[in-house]
């Protein structure tokens, strides 16, 4: 557990079941510091479950997950430690509707990081500027468009200064014309050297940003490769089928 490595995330022999349903099968995966990984695959392939295991929103039954040097087990202290360093962006944004955009962003820094309120607000404004919506700071989430809400959600996660960011289908719930504004923000973030794991079907984003693309099917990692290799020369027939389906239109 104290073994030092330059791995941000180390997953070995990970297995998870929902009742009798074997949702993750023998997953082994190492993610280096600053690496950007895109995970794709058909729905029900376990890709969301995988990244939700990384901040213990889902509990795994077998195997080890070490995030930023901390092993995730049932120790609440460890779970809290990991969650402080890992930001997550959800498909449905999950902003807190009763708080303003600024309050959404400052709540966790103030209570979890114990940042003084003034500093937390100043930092939040910086991140809101980075996602290009500082002018919405005093509105409520319900007054924003989907794309704006998702950018607030990204800023909210960044305010905790995480070392790793997880994205769970961040553009799947958005209207088509709003997808690019969110992807642009994510591309900017990738340039800062953030370790990112992104579950998405946006293959353009994968080609442009990812260091490695992982294809999952039936709860296992079927293929992983650099984007060039992955898109131009997929090895496995399931990958080829998936790519032909997703890139056909």
């Amino acid at each position: 557990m104290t073994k030092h490595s330059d791995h941000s995330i180390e997953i070995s022999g990970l297995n998870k079941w929902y009742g009798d349903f074997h949702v993750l099968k023998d997953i082994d995966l190492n993610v280096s510091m600053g690496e950007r990984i895109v995970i794709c695959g058909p729905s029900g392939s376990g890709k969301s479950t995988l990244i939700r295991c990384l901040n213990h929103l889902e509990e795994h039954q077998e195997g080890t997950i070490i995030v930023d040097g901390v092993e995730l087990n049932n120790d609440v202290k460890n779970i809290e430690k990991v969650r402080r360093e890992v930001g997550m962006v959800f498909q449905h944004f999950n902003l807190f509707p009763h708080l303003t955009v600024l309050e959404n962003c400052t709540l966790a820094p103030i209570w979890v990081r114990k940042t003084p309120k003034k500093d937390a607000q100043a930092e939040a404004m910086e991140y809101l500027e980075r996602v290009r919506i500082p002018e919405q700071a005093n509105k409520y989430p319900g007054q924003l468009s989907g794309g704006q809400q998702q950018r607030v959600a990204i800023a909210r996660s960044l305010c905790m200064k995480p070392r790793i960011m997880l994205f769970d289908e961040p553009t799947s719930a958005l209207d088509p014309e709003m997808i690019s504004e969110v992807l642009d923000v994510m591309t900017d973030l990738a340039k800062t050297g953030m370790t990112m794991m992104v579950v998405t079907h946006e293959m353009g984003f994968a080609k442009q940003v990812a260091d490695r693309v992982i294809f999952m099917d039936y709860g296992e990692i079927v293929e992983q490769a650099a984007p060039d290799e992955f898109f131009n020369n997929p090895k496995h027939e399931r990958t080829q089928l998936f790519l032909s389906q997703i890139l056909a239109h």
Partner: protein
Amino acid sequence: MSALIKHTPLPDRPPPSSQTGIVHWAKQHLFSSTTNSLLTLASFYVLFLLVPPLVNWALLSATLEGTDRSACEANGGGACWTFIKIRFNQIMFGLYYGSHPEQIWRPVLAFFMLIGLVAPLFIERFSYKGLLAGFILLIFPFIAFALIHGAWLGLPVAETNEWGGFMLTFILSIVGIIAALPLGILLALGRRSELPVVRSFCVFFIELWRGTPLITVLFMASVLLPLFFPSGVDLDKVLRALIGITLFQSAYTAEAIRGGLQAIPKGQFEAADALGLAYWEKMTFIILPQALKISIPGIVNTFIELFKDTTLVSIIGLLDLLNMSQTAAQSAEWRGYDTEAYIFAAFIFWIFCYGMSRYSQNLETKLDRGHKN
């Protein structure tokens, strides 16, 4: 076929005039079909039969002058509000204050102090709300008790078993409501807890009180509760009623809040978890504010029920608003004026219940941030 291209949007036009105005409204809402017209006319007829005699009895031929029943008997026919006027202090403040009108400033002062203290809580910009709320909850009850009960600063003692009327109704329900709220929140959270022992205890506690009529609870509070205290400790009758009412009410409040908790989407819990918030931070800042907002109608419903149910304290010998009105009407001077007593009590109850219901509607509108998820 030529291409259709528009360069400017069409301007807005007002709706046709036949769609507005009172005649149009009446046509649409009162006389839209033969059946509806008949129903409208029938309703008007029923109102015509009921309202004029009622107004005549309660207002036009009612008596307010004089100091005893002779004034009412001379007038005849209408309501005898003289009775309510003469016995007003007794009905509102109970036996002690009814017979010591010079002391009535004490409960009145306590009441207005409460209003004065609560008012700043509704000012958006007031920044010591927490402190003030703490003062109201933890310190004010003692001030109010000292004022109303007396026995210090040379104030004559008003024993609690001589408290009564509207004052008692108000004390029982406001203390019950306020004390039950935090208890109800804890019970609701406990019932949804992942810790099996906590959950079982909360389920047991809630179902125990929900499965028991308030009358039984009050009986138990008055007969059983003293058994748990060493002999010689004489627990005050009003205090016993308060304990029973609070525990009873907390179960209902808990169920109303649990409904709200269940309506909060899972994503809210997950987002709070993912940000690293601990359980109590998550509940205090994220979940409860949303859940309580959703439960407002349910909570206010239980409040209104409790307010009316306090009349049951007559069973343990306390005289609340209703029973005090009844008692007043059974006195030798005013025998036979029960109708006035009941109507007056009902009117006071109605004002407060309707007020609470309106306030909850306002609160819902105010707290609505126009969001769906």
